[in-house]
């Protein structure tokens, strides 16, 4: 494969040409992608919230937000502003330290996980070798934040919601990790960039979804459960638990939970597209296409078009999945806690184990198609 566009190299070289040392240039570079990802994560959330409102309205034959901007596109901004100026209330008998730290512990791992989401060959913050494993590890910190906020609110609904959230995310993490493991086994690498590259040999046909259909479904179910989306939103089941662990929260602290939930949804959708739908890959192989119109793949114009196409493809795939998640939310009823745990432990876990074993044996039998 070609090396693609390397923004970091060009940036550090540009700064060095201004007469600064290499280390200083690197130091100047470090905050830029982080800022970019933070901004893109928040914009992703705003878009998702707007989609959620509009699609839910369509599902219920309403119009939905309409007055804030064209088609109500500024409604999420208005929501955010409202939360920003609301009073920050800490209940009188709550544990104020834990109450404050809880939402932060929920949000930070989610944002950190964006580290590994690739939008192109070199368009990710850090191509760490442990890649996808980092995401699994980071997402296991979240239950602690949920338990913390549930406990410190000093409210029985909050505590129950927090316990439910922790139980849910622990039990769905295992099939999730096993589904990821099958992918990792096929691509011989934990790095997200390698996983995508291995899928982009023959365009649409080489995507992992054809080789891992069961894994795809398991991963999607578990990702929805990890994001606490309906049909798995038991931790905040409003008919039973008021709002679960968020009951006592208001203002910016509530907004942190809200943000974390939606960032997690977008992140999960992005990761599904990276793991199963070929990431930044276009359905038709770019190499083949560029040779068709007689341009070399190293041509700068082809490079720029390929990179922007990659970003567009990643986001498009992710938002198709977000759309699916929103449709699911507004059309399916909620499962009960015992059904949820049964599904996780008695159905998904054995199925994902079998999937892993089948993948391993297929890999031994057909090393060509299953990445020997």
């Amino acid at each position: 494969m070609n090396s693609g566009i390397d923004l970091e190299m060009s940036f550090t070289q540009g700064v060095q040409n201004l007469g600064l040392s290499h280390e200083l240039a690197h130091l100047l570079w470090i905050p830029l992608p982080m800022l970019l990802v933070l901004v893109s994560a928040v914009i992703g959330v705003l878009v998702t919230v707007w989609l959620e409102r509009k699609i839910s309205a369509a599902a219920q034959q309403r119009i939905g937000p309409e007055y804030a901007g064209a088609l109500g596109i500024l409604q999420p901004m208005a929501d955010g502003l409202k939360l920003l100026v609301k009073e920050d209330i800490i209940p009188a008998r709550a544990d104020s330290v834990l109450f404050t730290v809880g939402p932060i512990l929920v949000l930070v791992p989610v944002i950190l996980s964006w580290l590994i989401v690739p939008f192109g060959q070199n368009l990710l913050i850090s191509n760490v070798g442990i890649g996808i494993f980092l995401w699994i590890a980071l997402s296991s910190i979240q239950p602690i934040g949920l338990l913390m906020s549930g406990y410190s609110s000093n409210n029985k609904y909050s505590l129950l919601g927090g316990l439910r959230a922790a139980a849910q995310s622990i039990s769905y993490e295992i099939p999730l990790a096993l589904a990821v493991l099958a992918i990792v086994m096929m691509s011989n690498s934990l790095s997200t960039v390698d996983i995508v590259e291995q899928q982009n040999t023959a365009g649409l046909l080489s995507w992992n979804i054809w080789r891992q259909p069961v894994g795809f479904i398991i991963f999607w179910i578990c990702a929805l459960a990890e994001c606490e989306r309906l049909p798995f939103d038991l931790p905040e089941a409003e008919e039973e638990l008021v709002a679960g662990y968020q009951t006592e929260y208001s203002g910016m602290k509530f907004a942190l939970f809200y943000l974390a939930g939606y960032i997690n949804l977008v992140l999960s959708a992005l990761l599904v597209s990276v793991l199963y739908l070929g990431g930044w890959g276009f359905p038709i192989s770019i190499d083949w296409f560029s040779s068709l119109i007689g341009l070399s793949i190293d041509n700068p114009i082809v490079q720029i078009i390929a990179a922007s196409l990659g970003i567009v493809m990643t986001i498009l795939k992710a938002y198709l999945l977000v759309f699916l998640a929103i449709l699911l939310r507004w059309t399916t009823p909620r499962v009960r806690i015992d059904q949820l745990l049964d599904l996780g432990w008695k159905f998904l876990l054995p199925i994902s184990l079998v999937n892993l074993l089948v993948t391993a044996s297929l890999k031994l039998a057909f090393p060509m198609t299953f990445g020997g």
Partner: protein
Amino acid sequence: MNIAYSTELICFLILSAVIVSGSLAVVLLENIVYSAFLLGGVFMAVAGLYLLLNASFVAAAQILVYVGAVNVLILFAIMLVNNKEKLKPIKGLRTRKFISGGVCGGLLILLLRVSITTKWNLPGPTSIGEEATERIGEHLFTDYLLPFELASILLLMAMIGAIVLARRDVSIPAADINDLKNQKSLSDKKVPLLSENSIK
């Protein structure tokens, strides 16, 4: 002193301070919930130390296992226990504290002595960085296969034990079902984990 080295040094100092003060707080705090949460913090700081040593796989595994599983389990256990109830006073608590403090201090002195008298081979072996994952896998399936399998058998035993403990099956002959002493075992046969009876 270049930027990379000084960043590393600052990170190391902060992480060690967090680990030392955090673990002291875990032991010394009266509130066990705080202790449990701080334990999670200490685990995360240890993962940070692994990261500084270029062992990113070990760091992620540390977070996944210790923070994500062990610490959450501890928190679960604590939160399901009635925390309003005061713990029973233990006899001779002061002498116990002195004894355990003495033992810990002795261990500390011993370890310090070992670390000072040992001739460290500096600088140590260069870290293999990203290759570490493959190397760990190789070792686990070749020369460390037996310990690896033994550990998995241990985990399996623990899992079976937990299931047996949690099942609480009672078999009562149909004739004795109305017997007064069997009433209790029938009623507590199925108390769901998150029902009102388990949390007050």
